[in-house]
């Protein structure tokens, strides 16, 4: 099918009823899902998947894509206002977004986040189209050794997430790597550190752990403080406009963060759980005045929010090109496509190019619409930061507990939430960085799996693979930069 015809058909059908109706329905559901802690795009797509089988292919894709595309736009709300990640992709946003709310700058955080989310989502979608001629080669150039090195690179970024205590960050990430071994060994499938419980066979569940780590300490602090989240009064509308201007001011950071998002999305298996951390860590490493990060710096919102929307477009690329899902929700999208008789690879890149354009169009349109809707609501949303904290504690706690329970719907999810909540409380109190735990839990299994595979397949010669050498150099560069910064800040 000629590309122009496919583009016109694919984009055009999104403007026609009922497809446009399903697109807006998907956007609405996605916005709500993103706000509620613990749900995320995967849960939403899994729930709506069976319904999509009953629709025509364009409506089905509009519904699913509309939903999936916007969860990482609306998840900013709970991250900024409550210090609780709405989805796993907004963990890093908390580090500066929540302090901004406390400084009376919630409107500014939202203005920056939604603007950059829209841009990131649009660019991520356009990357799918632009990369069509070279998709296969790019995706297939990454193997187990490259995945291992990417995961190691992600780990060394931990130093930049540890504020002024990189050694503490290192200790925490090693602790988290040990925790990530709970469950079953990837090569043997045998139980490991499960204390004879079936619940731990699947490892420590990330959602209740992260919610406990960040939500419970904030809830306790809100309760203890008694005042509102915002310590200072702010003008939400003026703040929103300022946030949008910040995006223009830091345009180069926006570009780099989007590139990180697309890049990580293209690599199957890395996923949205780390993209925000990598983008945030990169910002801390490369921007001026890094000591301001973590205190309410708008750049600390711009970087992760740009990346976590751009990653969606990136994840589409391997999914459609070779049938390898770029992320867990993409695996479900693949199912929806095949149920409608469309296969990845030559089929969707050739005969059914219109469906590809329809998917990309839905992604782009949904990002713009969601950002616009949420920008309009910014003024009202920002006022939540002025509500007395004790009035919010119950809501936040219930939302966090509900989100935790969604992990496996077992009461043990709450035990995990409480255990990590206690840990997070003391870590916050004694100034130990919490973000490295998230990185360690996500990257630990990847590091173990891909190291084992690399050695099994290649011996040790993989250390000299060209891309691996580049990544090794990057790792050294990041480490050297961190060490130099650490010495400079002391001296």
């Amino acid at each position, binding site marked *: 099918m000629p590309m122009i015809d496919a583009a016109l058909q694919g984009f055009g059908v999104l403007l026609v009823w009922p497809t446009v109706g399903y697109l807006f329905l998907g956007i609405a559901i996605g916005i709500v899902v993103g706000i509620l802690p613990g749900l995320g795009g*995967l*849960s939403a*797509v*899994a*729930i709506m*998947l*069976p319904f999509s089988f009953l629709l025509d292919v364009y409506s089905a894709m509009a519904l699913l894509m509309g939903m999936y595309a916007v969860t990482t736009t609306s998840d900013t709300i709970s991250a900024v206002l409550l210090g609780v990640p709405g989805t796993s992709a907004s963990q890093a946003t908390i580090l500066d977004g929540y302090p901004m709310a406390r400084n009376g700058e919630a409107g500014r955080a939202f203005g920056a986040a939604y603007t950059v989310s829209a841009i990131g989502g649009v660019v991520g979608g356009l990357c799918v189209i632009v990369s069509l001629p070279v998709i296969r080669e790019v*995706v*297939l*150039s*990454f*193997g*187990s050794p490259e995945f291992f090195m990417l995961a190691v690179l992600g780990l060394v970024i931990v130093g930049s997430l540890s504020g002024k205590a990189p050694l503490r960050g290192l200790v925490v990430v090693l602790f988290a790597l040990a925790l990530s071994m709970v469950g079953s*060994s*990837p*090569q*043997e*499938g*045998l*139980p490991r550190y*499960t204390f*004879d*419980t*079936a*619940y731990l*066979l*699947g490892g420590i569940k990330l959602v209740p752990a992260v919610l406990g780590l960040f939500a419970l300490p904030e809830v306790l602090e809100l309760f203890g403080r008694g005042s509102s989240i915002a310590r200072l009064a702010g003008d939400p509308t003026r703040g929103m406009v300022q946030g949008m201007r910040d995006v223009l001011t830091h345009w180069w950071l926006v570009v780099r963060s989007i590139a990180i998002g697309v890049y990580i999305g293209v690599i*199957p*298996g890395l996923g949205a759980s780390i993209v925000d951390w990598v983008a945030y860590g990169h910002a801390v490493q490369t921007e001026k005045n890094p000591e301001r990060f973590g205190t309410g710096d708008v750049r600390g919102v711009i970087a992760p929010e740009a990346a976590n929307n751009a990653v969606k477009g990136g994840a589409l690329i*391997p999914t459609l090109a*070779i*049938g*390898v*899902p770029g992320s867990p929700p993409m*695996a*479900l999208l*693949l*199912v929806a496509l*095949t*149920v409608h008789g469309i*296969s*990845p*690879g*030559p*089929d969707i890149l050739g005969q059914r190019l219109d469906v590809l354009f329809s998917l990309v169009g839905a992604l782009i349109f949904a990002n713009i619409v969601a950002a616009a809707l949420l920008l309009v609501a910014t003024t009202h949303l920002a006022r939540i930061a002025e509500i007395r904290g004790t009035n919010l504690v119950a809501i936040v706690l219930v939302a966090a507990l509900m989100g935790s329970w969604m992990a*496996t*719907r*077992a009461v043990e999810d709450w035990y995990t939430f409480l255990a990590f909540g206690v840990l997070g409380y003391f870590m916050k109190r004694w100034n130990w960085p919490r973000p490295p735990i998230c990185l360690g839990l996500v990257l630990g299994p990847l590091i173990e*799996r891909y190291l*084992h*595979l690399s050695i*099994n*397949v290649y011996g040790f010669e993989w250390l000299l693979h060209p891309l691996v050498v580049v990544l090794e150099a990057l790792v050294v560069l990041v480490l050297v930069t961190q060490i130099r910064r650490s010495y400079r800040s002391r001296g």
Partner: protein
Amino acid sequence: MKRSASTLAATAAIAILAAYGQAAFAASYYDGKTIEISVDRGSGGSQDRICRFMASHLATYIEGKPKIVVRNRPGGTGVVATNWLYDQAPKDGTALGCFLPIRFYQDAYWGTGGKKSLGLKADVRKLVPVAGTAVLTVTYVRSDVGGGIKAPTDLKGAPFFKTGGQSITSTKDISFRTIFDLAGIRYNYVTGYQDSADAWAAVLRNEVQQHQSGIPHYMKVVLPTGVNTGKVTPLYYSSTQRIPELAPAIPAIDFVKKYGGKPEGMLWDLYQTSGAWRAFFLPPGTPEAAARAFESGFQRMLGDAAFRAAYKERYHLAPEWIAGRTALDREMVDPYRRSGKSLASFKKGYIDKARKK
């Protein structure tokens, strides 16, 4: 003669009354009722999707046309759902489980060194199976292995190739290793890929050259992007029946024979007991009439042309499900019952051998 005729007549009358009674039970019992089917894996995965697909059609074939809802109870690789069905599910015929139970049958009949699967409290032998299917898998290799592979028998004399397994203890890995060993095919055993999508990517970039996929992944990804483009060649599949849609692949038993191997002995028994099954179960203590209502419901469904067409449209193959406790006991459970602990020891040694390599 007279006595036997009257006995026959009486038996027939009782049978008719029982059948009528059963149908009457079902028709009146399930009228207005809701049946809950628990799936032992999380929502969205292949297990969840196929259980929901079956559930979405089943109500039409149960007398009384009850409402059916599906609920996921993931955890412990099936332990949570199995324990729930055994212990806590209502035993009045309104609860079913859709499980992958093979590991638990192995525990029950072989014993895992005296230790059950982690956290398993249920005795799976007491669950009542009403319908099930052997999970069909297809093994394929890259077409550029050795001098080029176009047919399943072209691996003869091929140099070592690397397999893409999932874990040393997984049924998939044991399954393809046993077939390759029976056929005398040389391979380097690589394992640790997370799932079929991960392994498929590894095959595409030539990191490994072989994998064994379940039918959903094979039909929707491997076939259109690999087999049809000539990149990979399917070798064999796990069914004993010829399936034209999977050509040129052949049944595993034929594959072994074509290479001069003999499908017999402990290695063959291990292969036969390594295949996964997917089945619907009732909790122990469910009324007999309820069990029969489900068996006949599944039988009607599996025999209905409309259902078979819908199944084929979704899964690209005709359904190979069987219904009825007797048939399931023979096909699904008996291999474990017959093989006993000696096969368990053999399996342990076979796994240990892979671990030491």
